[in-house]
């Protein structure tokens, strides 16, 4: 376990972008909220004219704010994470530093698993942590700019705790759901001798085209799209009308919205972990990761 912590620290030394990119995003968003257009009237409160938030939900607005901020981070995160996984077992073969790392008593299994953990879990954790910090700064700045008006809802410890549970659940389920994709990336990274991005894209594309040409079907392509697109949908109960995450009650002719209704209703761990798609994904991911470890033991520099 000790080796593992050193390997993780090593990744932070090598890849400062792990925290630099989210830090820059957080910084830019903060600048935006300090100098941007902020407006509220009797019904709505909006930031830069983009998001209209009804006043009724102000008591729950920490949750809305956290979602709004974190989504921005979670859109950028997989792009970096994917790149990191594609590069992680390739760059040290390319610059020959693998010959230094392999001279130390660290197994290839530890090395591969540490890099996988960074790409799948640590990077999302860093993004969410910085998103969290940004959310709190946002709440503070908005409260200052709007006076006492929003302050009650924009810092809500109970809502904060609930969002932490939600983000941790999100990271865990997405790490499991995207295990086959991460496994494929780390396998390409261990195997390719050049052009890792191209090698990560071409074989799946070739399979799609080959299948279409041979059988006239699109099974593999649909499966890939499903894998890439449905992670959140499978981990959460999401209904089109939003009834799983908000509740509107009418009290004396006035609408009140509650967000979220209950985070435990929102999450669907049993459904997610018992789904065949999840289990097949785990199996494929583990197979690819094992293949990457075997390749790693037999390969030195390019």
């Amino acid at each position, binding site marked *: 376990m*000790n*080796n593992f912590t*050193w390997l993780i*620290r*090593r990744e932070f*030394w*090598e890849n400062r972008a792990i925290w630099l990119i989210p830090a820059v995003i957080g910084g830019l968003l903060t600048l935006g909220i300090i100098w941007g257009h902020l407006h509220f009237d009797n019904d709505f409160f909006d930031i830069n004219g983009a998001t209209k938030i009804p006043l009724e939900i102000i008591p729950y607005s920490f949750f809305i704010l956290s979602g709004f901020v974190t989504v921005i981070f979670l859109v950028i995160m997989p792009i970096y994470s994917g790149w990191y996984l594609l590069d992680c077992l390739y760059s*040290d073969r390319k*610059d*020959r*530093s*693998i*010959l*230094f790392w*392999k*001279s*130390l*008593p*660290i*197994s*290839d299994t530890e090395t591969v698993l540490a890099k996988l953990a960074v790409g799948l879990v640590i990077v999302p954790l860093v993004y969410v942590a910085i998103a969290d910090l940004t959310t709190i700064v946002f709440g503070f700045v908005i409260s200052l700019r709007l006076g006492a008006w929003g302050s009650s809802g924009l810092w809500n410890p109970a809502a904060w705790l609930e969002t932490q549970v939600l983000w941790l659940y999100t990271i865990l389920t997405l790490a499991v759901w995207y295990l086959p994709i991460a496994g494929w990336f780390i396998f390409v990274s261990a195997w390719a001798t050049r052009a890792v991005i191209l090698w990560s894209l071409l074989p799946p594309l070739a399979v799609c085209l080959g299948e279409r040409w041979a059988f006239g079907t699109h099974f593999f392509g649909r499966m890939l799209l499903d894998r890439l697109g449905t992670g959140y949908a499978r981990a959460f109960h999401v209904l089109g009308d939003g009834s799983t995450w908000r509740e509107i009650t009418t009290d004396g002719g006035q609408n009140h919205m509650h967000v979220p209704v209950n985070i435990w209703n929102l999450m669907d761990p049993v459904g997610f972990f018992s789904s065949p798609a999840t289990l097949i994904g785990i199996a494929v991911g583990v197979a690819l990761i094992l293949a990457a470890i075997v390749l790693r*033991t*037999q390969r*030195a*520099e390019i």
Partner: protein
Amino acid sequence: MPPLIEAKDLTKRYGSHVALDRVNFSVESGRIVGLIGPNGAGKTSALRSVLGLTNYSGYLRVLGKEPLRERTQLMRDACFIADVAVLPGWLRVDRAIDFVAGVHPRFRRERAAALLEKTTVRQQSRMRELSKGMKTQVHLALTMAIDAKLFVLDEPTLGLDLLARRSFYDALVNDYMDETRTILITTHQVEEVENLLTDVMFIDKGRIVLDSSLERIAERYAAVVVGPSDLEAARSLRPFHERRMLGKTILYFEQPDFERLAAFGEVLTPSVSDLFVAKLSGSLGAADTAADGETLAGVPHE
């Protein structure tokens, strides 16, 4: 006590190319062994196999372990420098020390610090900011601070200038070597290492063509310088190599009759580099002219 390294029928193929062809050798504890051969002879393949960096066929045990399968355990007792340019550019010197200290049970931090103290390397520098000579000093300090039984060096001074090469070998012999350690060095620059070796192995086209301690070289090999008048008579003793130099001819013999040889003049023990050229440039007729003006065949035979 079993040998430190034992190889039987060690074979390494790259496709149809045979890099090592059923090689047998062993290395005893406490020796400094030079594995010497021209470029592409199989030196690096042999070392990569010994260090568990590549797969091979045949029998190979290093410190009683099977290198490829047990590399992690092997690297607790063995260390290596495979080319000096392999420390990653992003790594800071002090963090390199932290990392090795963190993962290597036999690393002595104060020793690495003491070795670096003697140099001009700054601890906060990144490897990419250092000259090649300084990088070598860092790598050597990191490696010499490990209490290893076996130290393997693959072309350790490639690309270094004369001063850096000299100080590299001085440090190796003066600060590191003692009777508990064994060093295996590959190089194609024989002259540079011949004074520090206790044993030599010549490798050519994937085969070991000579494997001997330096003492036994004196018993087994001889060279004699003859003038044109004695040449035919000396040739009748069947030299395996001859070389013309300044109007005379140096003849090299394996297991000669020393008394009969002495009749032609002073019997010399060939230097390792002369023997290397003699063994590898083939048999009679492949004589080269001494354009580089080096000394004659070597030291007088006792």
